[in-house]
């Protein structure tokens, strides 16, 4: 579903990504792990067609991102660090606006996704009054509003407490059951590893490791990650 081959992002001599190769099958959750500065956000932005790659190829559902970004956009739902929400508008208005951009008319679908993330009671409240956890949930609702095939999430569990993280994990698993392909980044491997069907490790802009991790295999995996990310 998501295929990249030696994707790079560099200018002059500075490289944010030096060669990322991924193959993510449909209906799976892929964890992209790496310390801050490894290039995780850049990778998400490239796949989301927000940033253009300087080399390599990337495909989502067979569509080449660099050649035809417009065709990719309806297929993806994105959650970034910055919320894409307008604080002065209500939750419902935000979703209706987003819907109008994606060709989803009316209130029905916005209400449905609000219910899914447990925000229906607050539908007519301004997003500016929401807590961070609520905004995160609304961001997820926004991302799935137009029924994309792929979810691209940049550190979706960051800043959430235990309960919030549990809810998001359950939500993501539910989306996967319904056919979604999910790519999410994180820098807390120890906490989040179980969420992914497979884990890709990013170090200094390159994919250095890729593995399906079982509970028994976790210690050796963590050791491998240590080893690979110490090298310069």
């Amino acid at each position, binding site marked *: 579903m998501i295929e990249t081959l030696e994707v790079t992002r560099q200018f002059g001599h500075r490289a944010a990504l030096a060669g990322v190769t991924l193959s993510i099958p449909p209906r799976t959750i892929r964890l992209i792990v790496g310390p801050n500065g490894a290039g995780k956000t850049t990778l998400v*932005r490239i796949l*989301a*067609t*927000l*940033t*253009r790659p300087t080399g390599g190829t990337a495909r989502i559902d067979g569509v080449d991102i660099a050649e035809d970004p*417009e065709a990719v*956009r*309806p297929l*993806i739902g*994105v959650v*970034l*660090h*910055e*919320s*894409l*929400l*307008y*604080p*002065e*508008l209500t939750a419902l*208005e935000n979703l209706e*606006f*987003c819907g*109008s*951009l*994606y*060709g989803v008319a009316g209130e029905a679908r916005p209400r449905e996704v609000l219910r899914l993330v447990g925000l229906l009671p607050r539908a007519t409240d301004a997003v500016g009054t929401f807590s961070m956890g609520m905004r995160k949930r609304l961001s997820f609702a926004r991302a799935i509003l137009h029924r994309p095939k792929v979810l691209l999430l940049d550190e979706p569990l960051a800043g959430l407490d235990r309960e919030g993280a549990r809810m998001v994990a359950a939500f993501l698993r539910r989306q996967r059951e319904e056919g979604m392909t999910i790519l999410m980044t994180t820098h807390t491997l120890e906490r989040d590893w179980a969420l992914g069907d497979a884990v890709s490790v990013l170090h200094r802009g390159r994919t250095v490791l890729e593995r399906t991790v079982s509970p028994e295999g976790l210690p050796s995996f963590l050791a491998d990650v240590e080893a690979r990310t110490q090298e310069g």
Partner: protein
Amino acid sequence: MNSGKAWSIAKKDLRSELRSREGATTLVFLSLLILFVFRGILDPRLGARDPALVAGILWATFFFVGTVGVAGTYGRERDRGTLEGLVLAPGGAFAVYLGKLAATAALTVAVNSLSLLFLGVLFNYDFGGVIVLVWLVMLAGTLGFLSIGSVIAALVRGARSRDALITILLIPITLFSIVMPSVSATAALLGGSGTLTSNLYTMVPATVVFVALAYLLFPFVLEE
């Protein structure tokens, strides 16, 4: 290009503005401030009888209101991180440009109309029957100015001291192609020398060229 996208964005911008009044308040205060400054520094005996003077004051005001207005439009989206949402949506970059241009133009024209009123009061100036044409010239000039102002504002939305930068960047581009002809046309209407039509003959093609440049370049402008 998706005109539905442009229309949705324009509506959203206007709704946001009505809700928060952020932009409008700033612009109205700015307009008053500029007019007060002019009122203060000019010799009261000069009065406002000179058409060139009145036209100049008006357009100085319109210029700065336009600059701040368009800076705010893209500045706010960028600071809140919501601009990515507009780029992510299908429909292309030009639709974003058009939608925001429409909303910004509506807001700016409204404030500029108030400026006409403020000037009339502050300077005891009676526009007379020609006010409608003056308003139309303001409309044309504002649209022309914003057509390229949007591109520049969006371009430098992430730079340091972007507000000052926008003004510096816009002056060479618009001062002689849009602002001066607008001043000249306005002065002509108010009884001074010059003609209305020859100035429109330059402003309209200039605006068309600016919109064409926006069409070609806005996808690059919105990149990050």
